[in-house]
């Protein structure tokens, strides 16, 4: 299962940490929680993936849906610190071109 927490929220950015596993089982919950967190705020979104150990195509699809919503309001989503296994899936699907990926 996964955990989603709003870590910080300044004038410009909201940092949301995503921890655990997102797969076909947890995806529906993840979609609801993520869309809610995004609707609640006006800033750019930074998703901290440092402790996300697993994501599948369904999770990636949900991220794409989230990006669409955010872009409609001229904001964007940054993926922060994905593990190499997760990073690889962004590369394979070409999503590393859609999202800003920030490795620290």
């Amino acid at each position, binding site marked *: 299962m996964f955990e989603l927490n709003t870590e910080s929220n300044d004038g410009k950015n909201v940092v949301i940490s995503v921890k655990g596993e997102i*797969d*076909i*089982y947890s995806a529906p919950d993840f979609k609801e929680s993520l869309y809610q967190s995004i609707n609640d705020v006006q800033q750019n979104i930074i998703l901290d993936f440092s402790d996300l150990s697993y994501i*599948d*195509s369904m999770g990636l*699809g949900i991220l794409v849906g989230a990006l669409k919503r955010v872009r409609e309001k001229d904001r964007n989503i940054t993926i922060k610190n994905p593990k*190499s296994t997760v990073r690889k*899936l962004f590369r394979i*699907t070409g999503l590393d071109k859609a999202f800003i990926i920030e490795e620290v």
Partner: protein
Amino acid sequence: MSTMDTITMLIPLKAEYVSIARLTVSGIASRMGFDIDTIEDIKVALSEILGKFIEKKSGTGRVNVDFQCLEDGISIKFKISDQSIPELFDNDTDKFALAIISSLMDEIEIEKQGDNSITMVKKLGKAV
């Protein structure tokens, strides 16, 4: 671990069981000597196929998964008893899944005649 041994798993087509299949394949792959990154690749590809089965056929019986230990890798074969394989990658949102599986595995074969199965193969010593 000798060649051609097969471990078989029959798994209900429900989302909550996919993580159990992931755990099992990681045990098999690690015993076969795959490195950590490749084990991760195999887990992801397995989950994607099971995920698509479940999306298209949820709740209808079980999927049969054969994990065959080859001399130079692992072959994983999916079958649904008494049912044809659904179109797994037919719509827009399935493109990620297919891209992922094709990139991570060395071979993927969808067999619609005969025994109606999907087989994917990963060779030893080939992380993506």
